[in-house]
């Protein structure tokens, strides 16, 4: 197994680069990061549409989220590959279709996370802000969202891990991310499929496991802050009652 890694690490890491486009693990990470960056603002907008009392915003947003949640990712990828060129007017690369799919998929799932985060802020916060004369918009921007987004950081990291796993679907439309690259190596070697795919599985495992642990650490930190055990400047707060537990 180690010879396989030694001989093919470059292809696994960066695909055909520099002879071709960037691929492999590098492309997987680019797809994930780009997907999250674009999907996140969309998900916040979707979340507000879903909690909005205006039916014209609420209903389309709800329909979108339910459709995306009800379809397998493979179907969405094929729809994207078919529809995006039609909408844009020219043919698109697999990369573009994949990014569009991932963004919509993530935005729908993330919007549920954001919505839960917003609704978890106690009603009293909104009442206090409105009693001071702050408008709905100001209340959301200055009081609810800062708290909700901070509380959501562990969930965001978990969604990022999901996104990394979802990029593997690029295999189906020949996008050169790490799963596809591993398959290419397998077709070259032919005699050691178990080793090749085991390396692939281990790579994902190490990457996602580390990030999941990071999410758990973040969860501990934000829960501590919420309970007032840690001041926002990062110092420890000595609370004799809570520390004795």
């Amino acid at each position, binding site marked *: 197994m180690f010879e396989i890694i030694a001989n093919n690490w470059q292809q696994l890491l960066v695909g055909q680069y520099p002879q071709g486009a960037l691929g492999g693990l590098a492309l997987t990470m680019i797809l994930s990061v780009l997907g999250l960056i674009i999907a996140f603002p969309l998900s916040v907008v979707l979340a507000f549409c879903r909690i909005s009392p205006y039916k014209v915003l609420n209903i389309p947003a709800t329909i979108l989220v339910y459709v995306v949640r009800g379809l397998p990712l493979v179907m969405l990828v094929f729809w994207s590959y078919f529809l995006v060129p039609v909408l844009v007017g020219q043919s698109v690369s697999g990369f573009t279709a994949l990014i569009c799919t991932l963004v919509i998929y993530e935005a729908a799932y993330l919007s549920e996370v954001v919505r839960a985060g917003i609704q978890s802020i106690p009603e009293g916060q909104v009442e206090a802000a409105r009693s*001071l*004369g702050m408008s709905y918009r100001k209340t959301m921007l200055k009081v609810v969202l800062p708290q909700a987004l901070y509380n959501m950081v562990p969930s965001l990291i978990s969604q990022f891990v999901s996104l990394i796993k979802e990029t593997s679907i690029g295999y189906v439309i020949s996008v050169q991310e790490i799963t596809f690259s591993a398959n290419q190596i397998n077709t070259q070697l032919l005699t050691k499929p178990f080793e090749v795919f085991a390396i692939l599985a281990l790579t994902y495992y190490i990457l996602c496991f580390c990030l999941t642990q990071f999410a758990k650490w973040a969860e501990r930190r934000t829960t501590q802050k919420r309970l007032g055990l840690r001041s926002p400047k990062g110092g420890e*707060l000595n609370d004799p009652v809570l520390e004795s537990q």
Partner: protein
Amino acid sequence: MIQFSKVNKWYGEYQALVEVTAAVAQGEVVVVCGPSGSGKSTLIRTVNRLEEIQKGSIYLNGQDIHAKGLDLNAFRTQVGFVFQQFNLFPHLSVVENICLAPLTVRQQSKAEARSKAMALLERVGLAHKAEAYPQQLSGGQQQRVAIARALAMDPPVMLFDEPTSALDPEMVGEVLAVMKELAREGMTMVCVTHEMNFAREVADRIWFMDKGAILEEAKPAVFFSAPEHPRAQAFISDLRNH
């Protein structure tokens, strides 16, 4: 200052407020008391429209608070509200909590808002905690900050919804002290509270409520010695027996 005129409110089938008609004059301190579920909190929450009413009207300074075209946010800056659960903003420091509304609603300059906030913190005795965060303060300190936050908008009226009910007994005194000081300075106040000593000392009038209606309105001296309504009499004798 505040006028309730035949105010009625229902939660579905349940009537929470029944034909409430009363008035609070400028500079007056009114304490609202009564058993649980009598509608006391609901009544004061209707004044800044945290609760809406189905029948009747409420006037603040002669202005109908349900008038069409009323700017709700601007209206609310005229009514200070202090919550039982304090509801301080945990992601902001104490001084930022107080400055938030003046900065974002009144568009004051940072320097102006801050100096006002520090002055208010002096008044409630917490200037040394300006940069602390709410989680680092005791309950009594948090409530005092909440009072300062409400005062920062210079409202002509202050409403208190059981301000000391969520506090440990030893912290009740410091909050009541702030409220007494406010009353002495001539603030128009309506307080829902169970603190009868506070009512005796500071209130100009006491409203006794039960089952959504104001059953008795009297000066404290009269109310505590010789209440007229039988429910009020029962309430007072229960108090004495504890």
